């Protein structure tokens, strides 16, 4: 078992402060709420500031290509802050999922444009796709790279420039780059107002092969595993906001002649939630660090973190709604944005149940009737 670094470095704390300052200035909860029903769901102005001034768009991109040459640990810290603000940005799709594929493909020109904040990209898979799911074959590619097919429930498509499309070609599965202008994007009604979803329809769209059949499955899996790992940090930040906001409210709100937060029944619920969040922090850091360092047990740590952080974020948001009482049910209080994000995140990149099922194989705890897998060394 690898020695994990579960703390935050000074560089990471500096990055956190910078991102948090931008978000406090440009993305307060009321502004997110005001935007979410409008014509431009993603805040492109905010993205430009984060990309150009803080440099978050190209964190893991090499410095030679205009990126920061950082590790996934830093991307995880950015996601904590984006989760805390429930920020409407395409960071997960562009700077995590698509970037992981482009890095594997050594796609210098695309990475340079992404790191500069000039373009964004997204990975064209249904958002619920789990890392260990079979390679999606809904899009067919011809030998000359023309792509046809539809993928539903794709995240982070608004304002996107570049699509990274898994497709089944004559030689086998491949990952292709397609200009978004060549595709038809049909928005879906989305549970999470701050992360819109769309169906992507391709009819003979010209694509460029990025990763061929020899590596396509492994690279897609790595991208989904990375996304699932870093989503834990978004869920952590989201849960921390819910707890902090609820605690602040319960210290103010009075009923029965006393501050509501002095009732033991409520204190114990919040203490239990705090405990789960302390676990989420350790698990999310472990998953990010394991991927950043290429640890051999990374898949185990991602499965553990993904199932725990998903459930913790949902519970934090549900508790926040309940403990805010009537105000928690209103549209004007932003806590519903967090509830919707938390519930959608629970389905994204593998549900908790799917991650635990993946774990069963990884640590040799087979389901009833399953053929026992060889024991994977994990210590």
């Amino acid at each position, binding site marked *: 078992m690898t020695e994990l670094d579960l703390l935050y470095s000074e560089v990471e704390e500096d990055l956190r402060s910078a991102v948090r300052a931008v978000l406090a200035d440009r993305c307060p909860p009321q502004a997110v709420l005001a935007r979410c029903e409008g014509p431009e769901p993603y805040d492109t102005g905010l993205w430009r500031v984060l990309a150009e001034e803080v440099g978050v768009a190209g964190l893991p991109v090499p410095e030679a290509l205009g990126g920061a040459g950082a590790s996934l640990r830093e991307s995880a810290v950015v996601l904590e802050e984006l989760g805390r603000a429930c920020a409407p940005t395409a960071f997960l799709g562009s700077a995590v999922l698509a970037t992981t594929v482009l890095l594997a493909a050594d796609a210098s020109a695309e990475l340079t444009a992404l790191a500069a904040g000039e373009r964004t990209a997204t990975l064209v898979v249904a958002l619920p796709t789990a890392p260990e799911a079979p390679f999606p074959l809904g899009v067919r590619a011809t030998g000359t790279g023309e792509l046809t097919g539809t993928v539903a429930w794709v995240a982070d498509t608004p304002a996107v420039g570049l699509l990274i499309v898994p497709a089944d070609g004559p030689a086998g599965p491949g990952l292709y780059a397609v200009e978004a202008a060549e595709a038809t994007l049909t928005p879906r009604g989305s549970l999470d107002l701050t992360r819109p979803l769309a169906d992507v329809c391709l009819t003979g769209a010209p694509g460029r092969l990025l990763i061929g059949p020899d590596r396509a499955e492994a690279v897609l899996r790595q991208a989904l595993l990375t996304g699932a790992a870093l989503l834990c940090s978004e869920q952590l930040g989201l849960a921390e906001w819910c707890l902090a906001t609820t605690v602040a409210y319960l210290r103010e709100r009075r009923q029965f002649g006393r501050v509501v937060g002095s009732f033991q029944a409520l204190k114990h619920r919040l203490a239990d939630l705090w405990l789960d969040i*302390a676990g989420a922090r*350790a698990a999310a850091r472990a998953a990010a660090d394991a991927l950043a360092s290429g640890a051999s047990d990374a898949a185990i740590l991602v499965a*553990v973190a993904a199932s*725990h952080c998903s459930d913790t974020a949902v519970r934090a948001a549900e508790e926040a709604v309940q403990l805010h009482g009537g105000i928690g049910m209103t549209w004007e209080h932003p806590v519903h944005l967090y509830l919707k994000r938390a519930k959608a995140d629970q389905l994204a990149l593998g549900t908790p149940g799917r991650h635990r099922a993946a774990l*069963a194989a990884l640590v040799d705890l087979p389901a*009833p009737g399953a053929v*026992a897998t060889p024991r994977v060394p994990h210590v």
Partner: protein
Amino acid sequence: MTTAEELRTRTADLLAAHDPAATEPLEFLRARFDAGLAWVHFPPGLGGLGAPRALQAVVDAELAAAGAPDNDPRRIGIGLGMAAPTVLRFGTEEQKQRFLRPLWTGEEVWCQLFSEPGAGSDLAALATRAVHEAGDAEGGGDGPGGHWTVDGQKVWTSSAHLARWAILLARTDPDVPKHQGISYFVCDMTDPGVDVRPLRQLTGEAEFNEVFLTGVRIPDAHRLGAVGEGWKIAQTTLNNERVAIGGHRTPREGGLIGLLADVWREQPGARTHELHQRLLQGWTDAEVLRLTAERLRQQLAVGQPGPEGAAAKLAFARLAQQLTGLEVELLAEEGLGYGDWTMSRPELVDFTGRDAGYRYLRAKGNSIEGGSSEILRNIIAERVLGLPAESRSDKDVPWKESAR
């Protein structure tokens, strides 16, 4: 400041002067204490060198590699984890010199006389009385400080039947509110007024004791800290207890989840989908707790202690109960059995060496002993989240007038 290199040299010197293969274990342990290698963060002369606490691991690793005897820290856990840090912080020079060395070598076992039948979670409500009698200047009546006469009953006392000494909380002033009139003593367990009776528990064995104190005479020289300051001193003891309970470092799938996982692998016939879901949830929870404890350890190592100490104990209790209950179910018919109901007096809680039924029953204590889960949740809510305390009616009332 002492470096790891200096500690390696000192350890090598100790091993050269006292070959572990040819030295009596007790003699070796005494020599180790005198060399300052017992707990390196303690002051020189008291088993330490005033070195950073983290460097203890360097010494322990070298000595283990050389096959040196250890002092069985589990058997003397109460002395090491609770009495020693309190004596070090609040004891007189004479008390430190008298108590710490035999405590560390294991020659003298300690127990803790805090809880009472009427004072568990509300520990400050304790009723055991200590009444002072002055001595005379010539040394009669236990010297110029005189002595205290103690009467009362204590309960849940682990190791009392083995102990030479006890840390004892007793009420020395009933006329002031309950937190103020308590003092802290070291009680001689061989005193004729000390009566230790086994307290059989739901597992069948008697791990704990009731202790009846009748006219026990404690010299004033065995008082720790100032008269009436016992509650504050007890906070040091209790905080150290929680760190000790939650601070273990376990490997992945270590402890209870390992036992459960092995049962699953070895008994394919007992598997159901419902048990599988609960097993995977338990495995995930165990790994999250392991990572939380590891993160706490890393924070401590860089001098950023977090409040996760209380959390680790709370989470451990919850998990232990969940996992042991699942294990009994998973064993099916075999889960109906129980090894032995004969009353025994174990020196240690042996979770892994006994059967699943024992583990299930014993784990019920994890959320009660060393601070109940309810009290720990209050601590987190009030000290970490900053929520207000419940209103208490007896906080400013003299103890003797409070409702009990």
